[in-house]
């Protein structure tokens, strides 16, 4: 998932308006930042597993909540943890992500059906922005700002999906026998 993570952040902020938005958005994209860091500094580990594996996501979520609590206080720290945790199920819908080891990636991989990915992430963004609108849209100027933000996020998503449109077919990972451990076991 790409822009949809920002939608998750907006929905959480609508629920807890005192949250500081920058660290919240950073947390909702947390595993992606960790993956980028591992790639950039070229650590000798699997960047996807050590950022998006279940254990890595759980540890990152706990640490992000603790860090938020230390810097900004207790209010909202749990939401930051939840934002980091929700990254995995969101990514499950649009990509393939590791579970408990590096070998088995699962996910619906909607990135390979860009129109479906765009539709789903846009729907999520519209719903999140509607929640945000209800809480923060007190005047026409503010509602306009929220509408522009929603359009900008959907445009960013459309740009990514336009890029993915040139890639291959649908790779629904749960349906691939090679990635299903019980079938791998039978084959032996």
């Amino acid at each position, binding site marked *: 998932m790409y822009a949809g993570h920002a939608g998750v952040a907006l929905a959480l902020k609508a629920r807890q308006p005192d949250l500081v938005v*920058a660290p919240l*958005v950073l947390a909702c*994209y947390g595993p*992606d930042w960790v993956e*980028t860091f591992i790639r950039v500094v070229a650590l000798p580990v699997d960047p996807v597993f050590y950022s998006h594996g279940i254990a890595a996501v759980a540890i990152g979520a706990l640490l992000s909540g603790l860090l938020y609590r230390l810097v900004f206080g207790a209010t909202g720290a749990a939401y930051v943890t939840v934002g980091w945790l929700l990254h995995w199920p969101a990514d499950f819908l649009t990509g393939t992500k590791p579970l408990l080891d590096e070998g088995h990636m699962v996910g619906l991989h909607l990135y390979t059906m860009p129109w479906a990915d765009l539709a789903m992430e846009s729907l999520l963004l519209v719903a999140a922005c509607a929640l945000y609108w209800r809480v923060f849209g007190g005047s026409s100027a503010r509602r306009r*700002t929220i509408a522009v*933000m929603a359009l900008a996020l959907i445009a*960013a998503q459309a740009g990514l999906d336009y890029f993915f449109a040139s890639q291959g077919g649908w790779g629904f990972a749960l349906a691939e026998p090679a990635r299903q451990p019980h079938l791998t076991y039978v084959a032996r």
Partner: protein
Amino acid sequence: MDLLVIIRQVPAVLEAWSSRQRGFLLALFVPLAIVVIADWRLRRQR
């Protein structure tokens, strides 16, 4: 002075990254920037 030295090294560091790494990083900053700018505007419109 130290900050200037660091800033001058930024282009060289970016040059060393692959286009995939640059794209990944840029893609992460776009939604962050959109939401932070919108939040900043909303706070000014109070």
